[in-house]
């Protein structure tokens, strides 16, 4: 069994019209056993920047702590928030530092950049960035997520419709993956507000 499949995860981020949504499942497992059903995989860096970390849970937590550290220092030195593109470059550099002993994580980064333009990207465990204009996925359910997003996604969706779409895509994808599920956690971010919602799906 692959180390990336030890804990199980499903992450997806989608771009809408002047907004973005990032969603994850809630299961924390140890191979076939479920340990927690409220495990947080998406973290807020600042009000317009979120990062979701799929893969090995311990690496996800440590990586998140390191990134928060870097971001706080940046904020103190430069007296401004980090742009999502800049943050993505930072994550990529941090991951590549450990090229020959990597963090077993796949990050999904979503944020609002200059002029509140939505930005999403994902990268592999050693920092190869993949930018996308529509959606990015990560985790054990990624293949199902690709299929679900590809069929359900439309460009320039408004916030409410984006929420519905990402929720449907997440739930249908995790239902096909035994290692992820137990509900969903969706963050919808517009220039003015951040909405956090819990989804109830098949609780298995």
């Amino acid at each position: 069994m692959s180390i990336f499949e030890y804990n199980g995860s499903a992450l997806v981020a989608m771009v809408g019209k002047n907004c973005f949504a990032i969603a994850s499942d809630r299961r924390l497992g140890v191979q076939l056993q479920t340990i927690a059903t409220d495990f947080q995989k998406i973290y807020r860096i600042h009000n317009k920047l979120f990062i979701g970390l799929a893969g090995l849970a311990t690496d996800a937590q440590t990586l998140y702590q390191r990134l928060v550290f870097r971001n706080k220092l940046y904020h103190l030195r430069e007296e401004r928030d980090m742009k999502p593109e800049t943050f993505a470059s930072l994550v990529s550099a941090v991951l590549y530092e450990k090229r020959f002993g990597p963090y077993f994580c796949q990050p999904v980064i979503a944020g609002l950049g200059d002029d509140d333009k939505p930005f999403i990207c994902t990268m592999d465990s050693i920092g190869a960035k993949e930018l996308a204009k529509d959606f990015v996925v990560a985790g054990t359910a990624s293949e199902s997520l690709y299929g679900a997003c590809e069929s359900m996604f439309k460009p320039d969706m408004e916030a409410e419709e984006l929420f519905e779409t990402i929720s449907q895509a997440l739930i249908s994808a995790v239902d096909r993956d035994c290692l992820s599920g137990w509900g969903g956690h969706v963050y919808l971010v517009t220039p003015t507000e951040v909405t956090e919602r819990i989804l109830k799906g098949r609780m298995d």
Partner: protein
Amino acid sequence: MGDSQYSFSLTTFSPSGKLVQIEHALTAVGSGQTSLGIKAVNGVVIATEKKLPSILVDETSVQKIQSLTPNIGVVYSGMGPDSRVLVRKSRKQAEQYYRLYKEPIPVTQLVRETATVMQEFTQSGGVRPFGVSLLVAGYDDKGPQLYQVDPSGSYFSWKASAMGKNVSNAKAFLEKRYTEDMELDDAVHTAILTLKEGFEGQISGKNIEIGVIDSKRIFKVLSPSEVEDYLQEVE
């Protein structure tokens, strides 16, 4: 500076609370060729005298004003070789920042890092402080900026400043001439007039150097003929 007993080790404070080596470094700066900078609403200009030791020196090979990044330039007063080392270190730091964040380094950050290097050389064993003060001119998201960095590692943001031999006259001249709404061209003219004030001999495009950065955010050192054009406008 009667604390000569304490001037041997730069890392030792004198009883008056000074680091004597830094005072000496500032003297080295004060006897260097005059340089100045002026911040305008739409850009920054930095300029310096380029007095060469002999007419046989190929003036095209000497460049006192250098760029640290495409949008940040620097001029110095004091010891040329020391400034070369600082330029090299600053360029490396700017590139390291870019490599990490894929974003050009903000002017304040680069100035802070350069100042940190200069401070390190006032608190380490076996080294001496840099014998230069730098004037850093840049244009980034916060607009046009002008900073002075001293051998001690302290840095200040200026609207207009001068350093070197003629510093007091030049600063007095700038205080009179500077206006908040100055445009870049006016600033270049003012810079030339300020240099002319203390200039020994005939000023020309070959014995002064001018660097400008405008709202297009590209730092450029003017060629001798461009400097001549500005000189003629000033006449």
